[in-house]
Structure formats: C-alpha cells, structure tokens
C-alpha cells in the first residue's frame, strides 16, 4: 500500500529526482545464511549456506563449506546431506510426507543451528484463471495487461499458508508472494497474484507453482516483503525478517507440499 502512495506522490509532483549517492555503511562480521527447502515431491532437496558481505562489496557470497547438515522427521527418520558443491548440501532418499514435522540441524565448526518446519498436507491448485488487469501503470492501455488468480479451496482449518512462484515464458519471477487464510478461511480463493515486475500479455505461457507452507515460513516471507522499507514515506522501518532458524542464522527452512499448473494467456 505504501508503495502505491509513493508512486502517486511521485507522479503527481513530477519534479522528484533520483541520484546515486555514496553512503558510508558499517561493516559487520559475516553472518551465516541458511536457505533450506524440501517438499512432498520425489527429488533431491537442497540446503544452501553462505555468508553475508558488506554492502560495498561485490555480490559474491562466500559459501559455508564443511558443515554437517541433517534433516530428521518426527517418526525417527533422519538423513545426513552431502555437500555436492561449495555451500550446497543435497539429500539422497528423503521424501517429504504431508503432516510430518521436519527438523533441520546444521553444525558449522561446532556451532549448532536448528529449524523446524511442518510439511502441510497438500491443498491442490485446481486451475489458473487469467483475467484482464485494471491495475495499470500510467499510460498503459486497458486490455494490455492480465493477471492470474489461482483457483483452490482453502481448507476449513485456520492457519493455512501458501506461496506462489510464477514462471513466465520460462523465466522465474523473483517476487516472494505469500497468502494466508486470515481473510478468506475455508473459501474458494479470489485473490489474484500481484507481482510488480511481472507483466502478462496475450500469448504468454505462465506456470504457477502453489506451495502449501508452514506459518513460520509465511511469516518469514511476509516480513521480508514488509521490511523492504526505505526511509520516510517509503514503507515500514526495515528489519531482518522473522526466521524459523534458531541459533542466530539468517534465512529459513521450509518443508512444503506443492502442485503446478501452466496456461497460455489469452
């Protein structure tokens, strides 16, 4: 919402001007970043580990090598991951099962990080509905832009959370899009997927992956979106997102169930 205000302020006042500036930002000791994902689909799951760098450095994030990484579930199953490339740890036989609780355990030179994620039971994505968008950028023609609504029915229980990943003509959209059922619990979904950088035009091929995610993972992405603030008028005070990793690392561990649909925009 704040972004919309800002856009309006900016377009109305025309005279606003941007420039790149030099700011002397503090350096900090590198922090551990863990990005762990697993699903209910057969396959190899990955846990990526890297370190933060200073703002003025290039975007090269040093991998965390030589860590011991295990994922276990509440039935006693456990698997140790292997480092397949620097900082990338992979599973072998593990298969996520809806309803189970998974625990990620990471040991980096004696320091332990843990994260717990419940893999939700699958709520299937039934279809993707494409409708013309009336959220237009200034100057855009009506009818030129479309927007996708994922069709699914939210279960009656409270606390279901979803993540959507859109791939347009083979290119993955980077936006973190998450829904919860605070508003429309137990009802067919009506909300479209708003993504700032994605423009659907006639003839495009769109794939939508819908993930059922744990509430802690929803909180992570929600707060990550919230805190992309940038000073007065630009949003909320920035802060690190709320993570489900215990032990002082950045990032998240998400066990999710997933389904996918592809449509041609017309």
């Amino acid at each position, binding site marked *: 919402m704040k972004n919309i205000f800002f856009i309006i302020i900016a377009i*109305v006042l025309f005279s606003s001007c941007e420039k790149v500036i030099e700011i002397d930002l503090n350096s900090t000791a590198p922090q551990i970043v863990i990005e762990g994902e697993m699903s209910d689909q057969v396959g190899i799951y990955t846990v990526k580990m890297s370190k933060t760098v200073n703002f003025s450095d290039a975007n090269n994030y040093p991998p965390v090598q030589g860590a011991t990484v295990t994922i276990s579930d509440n039935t006693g199953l456990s698997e140790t991951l292997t480092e397949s490339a620097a900082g990338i740890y992979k599973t072998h036989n593990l298969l996520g099962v809806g309803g189970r609780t998974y625990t990620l355990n990471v040991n980096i030179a004696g320091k332990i990080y843990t994260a717990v994620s419940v893999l939700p039971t699958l709520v299937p994505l039934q279809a993707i509905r494409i409708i013309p968008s009336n959220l237009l950028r200034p100057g855009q023609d009506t009818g030129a832009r479309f927007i996708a609504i994922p069709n699914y029915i939210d279960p009656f229980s409270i606390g279901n959370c979803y993540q959507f990943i859109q791939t347009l003509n083979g290119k993955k959209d980077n936006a973190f899009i998450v829904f919860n059922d605070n508003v429309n619990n137990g009802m067919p979904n009506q909300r479209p997927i708003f993504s700032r950088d994605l423009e659907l035009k006639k003839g495009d091929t769109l794939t939508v992956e819908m993930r059922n995610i744990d509430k802690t993972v929803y909180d992570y992405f929600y*707060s990550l979106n919230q805190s992309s603030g940038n000073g007065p008028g630009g*949003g909320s005070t920035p802060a690190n997102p709320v993570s489900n990793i215990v032990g002082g690392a950045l990032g998240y561990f998400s066990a999710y169930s997933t389904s996918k649909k592809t449509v041609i925009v017309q």
Partner: protein
Amino acid sequence: MFKKIILGLLLWVSMTHLMAQNTKFTISGTIRDAKTGEELIGASVVVQELAGIGITCNEYGFYSLTLKSGSYTLKTSFIGYEPITNKVVLDKDLKLDINLSNGAELKEVIVSAKKQDENVTKAQMGVEKLDITEISKIPVLFGEKDVLKTLQLLPGVKSAGEGNSGFYVRGGSADQNLILLDEAPVYNASHLLGFFSTFNSDAIKDVTLIKGNSPAQYGGRLSSVLDVKMNEGNDKNYQVKGGIGLISSRVSVEGPIQKEKSSFLITGRRTYADVFLKLSDQFKDNSLYFYDFNAKANYRINDKNRIFASGYFGRDKLGFGSAFGIDWGNITGTLRWNSILNPKLFSNTSVIYSDYNYNIKVSATGTGFKINSQIQDWNLKQEFQYFPNTENSWRFGFNSIYHTLTPSRFQTDSGSRNPQISRFALENAVYANNTYTFNAKLNIDYGLRLSSYSILGGDTYNIYQNNRKSDSVVLAKGNWGKTYFNFEPRVSVSYKLTDYSSIKLAYSRNTQNLHLLSNSTSTSPTDQWIGNSYNIKPEISDQVGLGYFRNFANNAFEFSAETYYKNMQNQVDYKNGADINSAPDVESELLFGKGRAYGLELYLKKKTGKFTGWLSYTLSRTERQMDGISNNNWYAAKQDRTHDISIVGMYQLTTNWSLAANWVYYTGNAVTFPSGKYNISGKTIYYYTERNGYRMPAYHRMDLSATYEQKRTGRYQSSWNFGVYNAYARENAYTITFKDNPDDPTRTQAVQTALFKTIPSITYNFKF
C-alpha cells in the same frame, strides 16, 4: 430630633462610604474587534493605577477584574490593535464591553503586543502563540498558507518531513499531539498525504501550542496541545474573502444573521491538481484531491448567554484508475453555550462530535477487497472559570468522552473471517486549575487532573503474555471492563528577576488513552487509532522544564531559553514484520516500551519595526526502548534530530510590498540502513544490525516570498503573493533506497530520491 436624624444619616452615609472603600466590586465584559465583532482571544486589560494588576481575557473574549472601589484607568490592548483607555468609577459591579480597532485602519501600523511582557510574567512555559497575520506572509509550499507548517518553524517543533504538515513536539510521536479545532479533537490533521493541513487559515482566529506543560483543562495526549479556534463570523457586515492559487482555491463568506446578535461563517477549499491530471493522457484516470468546509454560527441570547455551533467537514480522495481508491477525512461538530453566571463566574458547556475514518477499496476485475477503520467520539465538557480577585483565577470542570473505535479490517467482497467489531470506551476527567499571583515577582499556576478510561463491553479482549495468547476476556454489551485511573498533577512557577526577565520552572504529568498504530516511517491516512485494552496501558509522560525569559529594548525583542526532560511510559509500536491489515487481532502484533527526550530550545524574536522575525534553535535527543527491538537497547527515535534551526525574516519594504524569507536546517532523521547483504532465491536481501543506527543527510532549505497589497478600492482589498519553495534547489533526501546496480548486477547501490526542487507559487487573495 430632626438634627439627630440628619446626623445619623450623615454618619451612615460616611460609614457606608468608609465601608465602600474596602468593598470590592467587579468589572467584567467582553473585548471585541470594533469592525467585525469578533472576540479577541488573549487581549489584556491593565489597571494603570495598580502596577502589575491586569488580566488577559479568556478564549471567548471575557474578562473579569475584582478591585477595591475607586476610580481606575483601564488600558486594553491586543496585538495589531490600537490600545484603548477607559476611565471607570467602580462603586458597584460594572459591565464594560470594549471594542478595539484594528491597526490596519490607521495607515501606520503600530503593532502593540498583547501584554507586551506576558512571556516574561506569566507562569506558564512552553507556550507558542501564532500571529495569524504573520502566517499569511511566511512562504510555504504551493503558496497555501498553513498554520501547522508555520508552527514547525518554532523551537521544539519538528516537521514530519518534506512539505509535511505533520509535526513532532519535544520528542513525542505525531499522535501525541492533541489537536483541537473549536474544542473538537482532530484525529488526522493532514490532507493530501501531509502536504496540506486540515486548517483553512481563512477560518482561523487563534492558534496556541502548549509543549507539554499544559494547564489541567487539557488532557489526553502526552506531548502537546494545539488549540485552534475558528472565527465567529462578522456580526456587523457581510464579508467575502478568498484566494486563488496554483493548485487550490478557497473562499469564505461571513456576516450577520441579525446585526450584532448573531452571525455566521462558511469557508470552503478545494485542490484541483486532478484537473491537470485529467488534461494529461497518462494520468487522466487518476484522481487526487481534497476539499473541506468550515461552518460556524452563533447567537447572543442576551448579555449573559450565547450559543455557538461550529463544524468541520473534510475529505481526501485518491484514485488510481478504477482499480484502487482511498478516501479519508474528519468530521467535527461543536455545540457550545457560554454563560456569564455572575460577573466573576463564567461557564462554558460544550457537546462535541469528532469522527475520523478511512476507506480503501481495491477492485481488480473478478476480485475486490476493502480496508477501513473509524474512530468516533461524543464528548461533553463543562468548564467554569472563576475570578474571585486579582490574585487568583480558577478553572474547574469535567469532560466525558464516549469513544467508538472500529479497528482496521481487511475484507474481501466475499466477506471476512474476522468480523469487524467496534470497541467502546468511556474516558472521563475532572480537573481544577488555579493561577495565583503570589506577589509582583512570583506567579504560580497549578492544577490537578484526574482521568479515567473504562473499557465498555461488546467485544472479546485477548490477553497476551510473551507473544502468546494467555487468556481472553469476553465482555458482553452493557458490561464494564477494566478501568484505568490516573492522577495528573501540573505546576508552573515563574519568578521575575528584573522588570524584563524571569525564570520559570514547570512539571506536569500527562496520560494518553488512545494510541495511533503506524508502521510507516511517516504518517499515513491508514494508520489506525486503538484504545487501551488489557494489554495496552495508558501512556504516561512526566515532563520537567526550566526556562529563562528576557525581553530587550522595551519589549521589542523577546528571548527565551528552555530546557526540558521528558520520560514516557507504556509506549506502543508494531513488532518487526507485523501483519497490520489481516491479523485477526492487531494486539498480537504489538510491542511495548518506554521513551525519553530532552533538549534545549533557544528563541529570539523581533516583534516590532519594519523588520520582524525570529531565530530558533533546538538541541535535542529522543530515544525509545522496546522489548523486542534492537536487542532491547535504547535507540534513537526516527524524529530524533540533534540540531534544528529556523530563521524567519519579514520586511515591510513599502506600504504595498512586503518580503519574507525563511531558512531551515536540521540533522537528518534516524533511519535503519543495511550493514550487509546476502542472497535468498536469487534476490539480494539486506542485513540490518540495529534500529535507526544511521542518519539521513542533513536537511536544509530556503523559501522566499513577496506580498503585494493592492490599493484598496471601496470595500475591495486584494493582494498577490509570490513564493519560491526551496529557492536554491537543494536536493534533500526524501528516501534512500538500496538496490542492485542496473548497469552492473554484481554490485549494489544507494539511490536517493528528492521530492521537490524549486517550486514557485502564486496566489491571489481578495476580501470585500
């Protein structure tokens, strides 16, 4: 026998005469503008025979002086008016209404101050009074004169941001200012995202800002009271005033309903930036405007009783094609009855209504949702003012407010799981305040306010402990929930060191039962008001102030140095990453903590002559400590600005031309910038270490204006106002964003956005 009777009669006469020498009588009345019949708030009446004895009339122009019988010369004066002296023989209670003539009538303007040395003699400190005629000369953004923006040029008052009418007083947040329009609280005093205030200066008679040490009749906010009084309307002649500007216009009509018995005033204002939008192809579907109306009428029932009705209605509308619309606004209404019960006792009874609400509607095809929130008050106030003698004046009364708070709810067209249930509360206060002149040197102003806030039934209240719901209280309609009581003592003392200087000391406790939840770094119309609950306790502040006041050159210069220390308890803020719109209970998203603020304010004002103006400097620190933010350490609040300087100068060049300029400088706001970065799913994410650990670049700006008063033709008066905002085109940082460098994706960069460069303005004002 006859002789005896004569003798006895003489004896009796002389005895009564002797007695009369010691008997006191009261002279009272109302002070008005001779031409318009407007009461002059704060005009002073001084008894010339009795050094140091005098009184300032109250907010309804009423004064009452109780003196020993005798002959006196009363000198009545008010800023911008020609003083008047009245000789009176006080041998019975007298009623004397005084009419003062506006200085403008006498070609050569003699600006004689209120009581010229009132700033030195009065016990109260931290009080700023704005001169309405000054406001029209000071340059402002878009040329729309604005009381709130002028206030920001005073010490201890900080602007909420570029071109913004929001303000912070002595380290308080924006919601800790009690903003009153004819006694009615205004919950959001800004239009157009802050670029305009809700106050149409054509309708305004008096503006007083009290920075924390307010007398006991005010309460309910921690940091300040901004008391704005509207004009009553000319009760002698019809008058039309207006102004045409580049992006807005305003007009006001006032006049008698029955001559010298009743009058009315109606003002209206609208911006038309959207008209220009319509002309452009790109933006033709967007709308962005506001309008507001003030209306007022009053009726003198008789010499002693008068009733007033006043109202404000304002609305902002902002639309983005057919997809997105938001509108918000305030409505206030005041019905007031003034009664002079006896020459020493004045009564004011008011029934007040206030309402603030906002609605957001998003209607993308096939789906839609809305978010709205409202706060509504019914308020009954009874106040007595009692003037027993020249040393004492009392104010006492009560105030009772019934609040209806409708929390913000996210609702789709197909409904919401969380029904929007309004909460009800009753806020009460009783108070007494005494102003006592101990002797010629020592003045004291002290009072006590007892306030309470009761949660009324109709909703379920959850109790949270350590971020988890531990219990809930179901309050059925008609039941009373928890009541919070607070004692709020206030005292101010002034001691005159010399005829031209004094020191003052003040302490006050204030409490606040309503809290504005805002997640944004500036205020936004969608911030919501919430009352005390089982988790949210009344905010409490204790402020001590010490000041030195000195006038120079026969009161032509005013100087003051004030220091303050303020301690704040039970401050409320959102958690990091709080879910604001769709959380089932917003109270689960809150954090609580405390605050402290301290500073030094220096102020030098030149009040008379061709060149007038002031210099103000504030050195201050404002900090917060919240459990759950920045490892529970103290951190600088966003409005913490170490240095804040304003220089305002006005120069009367010729009888037609006047010039004005102001320059402001302040330390950049405390902000949170990243201290590192990392990557999540291919996106650069920033790593933050501490809350508000960085500073925006320092802000500075100069504005210029020139006003040309055209020759008066008959009743018709007009003037042109030319202004330049940000005259040397300083690019002040409005936001600083961090992003990937578009030319080199392996790097990140900081981008600063400045909102305005130089903005010229031109306004035509007229009056007939």
